[in-house]
């Protein structure tokens, strides 16, 4: 045994510590908003400043909140699907118009069609932060009790709707209000 082995032993202890550290890391939690009540907001409607939208209004219904903006390229991608969904009248879709210019947003809906029952106008993006939005588009599923049940990040694809979102919506719709 010689003293020159000491650095090696200390290092081995350090490696063990780091290995334990690796297995610990619990920082990654799925979206902290799932299963939590939808954050409240109180925003003017995009098309009519004098009317206010707030999540409490939809209590007793299952509804979708779609975060969108006229500058968002991927929103164009999912737009036809949203139109289809709105026309099928299976579930109401509300919009959260995020960091947008009011005139641009209204023009955009006029040009491509408006799938939303109404859109809340969040020009400063404050509500987006409350909802943990980190990219546009995002789509939330909210149940009859106002609890967020699902969050989809990025443009919706048909498979997302058919395999995840619509089955969940059907299930939530048939459940009794708690």
């Amino acid at each position, binding site marked *: 045994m010689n003293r020159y082995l000491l650095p090696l032993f200390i290092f081995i202890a350090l490696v063990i510590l780091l290995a334990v550290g690796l297995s610990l890391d619990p*920082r990654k939690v799925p979206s902290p908003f799932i299963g939590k009540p939808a954050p409240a907001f109180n925003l003017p409607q995009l098309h009519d400043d004098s009317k206010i939208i707030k999540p409490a209004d939809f209590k007793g219904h299952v509804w979708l909140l779609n975060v969108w903006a006229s500058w968002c390229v991927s929103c164009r991608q999912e737009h036809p699907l949203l139109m289809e969904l709105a026309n099928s009248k299976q579930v109401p879709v509300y919009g959260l118009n995020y960091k947008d210019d009011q005139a641009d947003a209204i023009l955009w809906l006029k040009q491509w069609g408006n799938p939303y029952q109404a859109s809340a106008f969040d020009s400063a993006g404050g509500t987006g932060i409350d909802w943990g939005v980190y990219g546009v588009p995002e789509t939330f599923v909210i149940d009859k009790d106002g609890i967020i049940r699902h969050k989809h990040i990025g443009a919706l694809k048909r498979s997302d709707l058919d395999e995840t979102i619509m089955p969940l919506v059907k299930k939530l719709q048939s459940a009794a209000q708690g």
Partner: protein
Amino acid sequence: MIPELGNFALILALSMALVQASLPVIGAWKNIPEWIALARPAAWMQLLFILIAFGCLTYTFIVHDFSVAYVAHNSNTQLPLLYRVSAVWGGHEGSLLLWALSLSIWTGAVTLFSRSVPQAMVARVVGVMGMVSVGFLLFMILTSNPFERLFPVPMEGRDLNPLLQDFGLVIHPPMLYMGYVGFSVAFAFAIAAMLGGRLDAAWAKWSRPWTNIAWMFLTLGIALGSWWAYYELGWGGWWFWDPVENASFMPWLMGTALMHSLATTEKRGSFKAWTVLLAIFAFSLSLLGTFLVRSGVLTSVHAFATDPTRGVFILIFLAVVVGGSLLLYAIRAPQIRSASQFDLVSRDTALLFNNVILVVACISILLGTLYPLVVDALGIGKISVGPPYFNSVFIPLTMPLAILVGVGAMMRWKHDEITRLTRKLWPVLLASIVIGIVLMMLYTSEVKVMAVVGIVLALWVTGTTLLGFWDRIKGKGNVLRALGKVPLGFYGMSVAHLGIGVFIVGITLTSLYSTEKDVRLVPGEKYELGGYEFTFKGVTRKKGPNYIAHEGNLHVTKDNKLIAFLQPQKRIYRTQPKPMTEAAIDAGLTRDLFVALGEPLGAENAWSVRLYHKPFIRWIWLGAVFMALGGLLAACDKRYRQQNKRNENKRAVV
């Protein structure tokens, strides 16, 4: 097509690295000249392939190829060209590629500038660097391939993190990595010397200029990071003891110790085993920093996206590289004999003292950085260790270092007389105290004890360094001629030590005399801070390429003269939810005026505005620039080239 080409180039680089890591080392061991000769071409080919891969990645960024996942995650069609290029190293995968490129450049440089080193030694050094490269390339190809495709192809990229869309961040990572990776050269020389079984002073001489240059890059890289944090994060601070900052600071401390220890080993043949250990430590800490930043074991403001498989890979890699080196050290070190003796009062002792302090400081930072992890691993809870710990440990530890820096440089090797030193030094001490007190009284009416201590210390460092320099040239007739005779190494040392003095002035005055104020201002309103009058002229809206901004307008006047027109911004990037604060700074040698825009406050177009007056903050980075310049000067000393010439002459004669 281009991304596949890049991917292919990466794989070719890996195969070259495998050749480079094996054949030359075996050749040096079995004495096969053909295999030894493979070291240089293998290193060059590896460099070429990594350059191709790097070029391919840059190209995919420039043309917005969002089919490549890494590009889609870190770029956007609205992103300006400069940031598209720097986005290449803006994320985990690309920064690894930069790491590998930098390692390859260092290896190439070693093959070019080591003509005086025996061929077998070069083969071992290049081989060891090849082994490190194999690890990094495998890591990249297996867990973090920057060329991975994405399907379906998104129409728009997610954009580069706005914090990174800044000029400071364009050059900070390359500098830092050149520093981190540069320590691999001293490491490779140390391992090669142990493999060859010849741990004489020669390896120390060969490693010295490399270590100096790596240290210079690291110094600049850290200073740039600190400067960036100062103006970009908008908090007005310049060092936060964040785990990632610590990860770059620990190798710096160890590298500083290594530079001094290498000098002792080369000149006096002492500290041999210790120097080898420091070379291993300095590079190991660079690797540990990489692990800490990328594995997600610690939380930090700028940790990369985390992924457990990556963490496991780096940990295994770290264990192999560092564990292997320390094992080799345990086998070889007992055979090393450090012959030389020295007295208590001698430059040798001073350098030993320097080493002990730097290493202890480094370990205390390591402890503080890892302590939250230890507590977590033991299941006690989650805590974080912050600036109070680091400041209260680090500052008292390094004070003696500043006291001794100039004195140590004046001391003689092996033996010196205490009486000779005190006779020389007491006038400097007296002058430092008197001038320090007078300067502080002239500077401010509010003299603080700690400020006087700091300024006296800075003057003392400066005075003793200049005195040491004067010792070198006095009594040699013509001053200019004598100046020309002083070796560059000595210039380098003196300039770097003066940098410490400059740095101390900066931190002392900034930390004790900074003033800051959060104020609510309506357009037209004035506020006075640090003798300057700030007039708020309201906020206008601005549109940038990929963001919109509120821009505040402030006139700054002093004695009714317009000093500056500051326009701080609050930016909202379309792809990020959080607004970004762009501070406006009027920089000056004796003070910075720093303004950050807060939030709109309701009626009358009022805004919250944060104003700072930061005296002498530039001196902090100026000190770092002095130190880096010192490192560069020392590396350029002609004695590192003389040997080359002598050998060439010998060759010519033969």
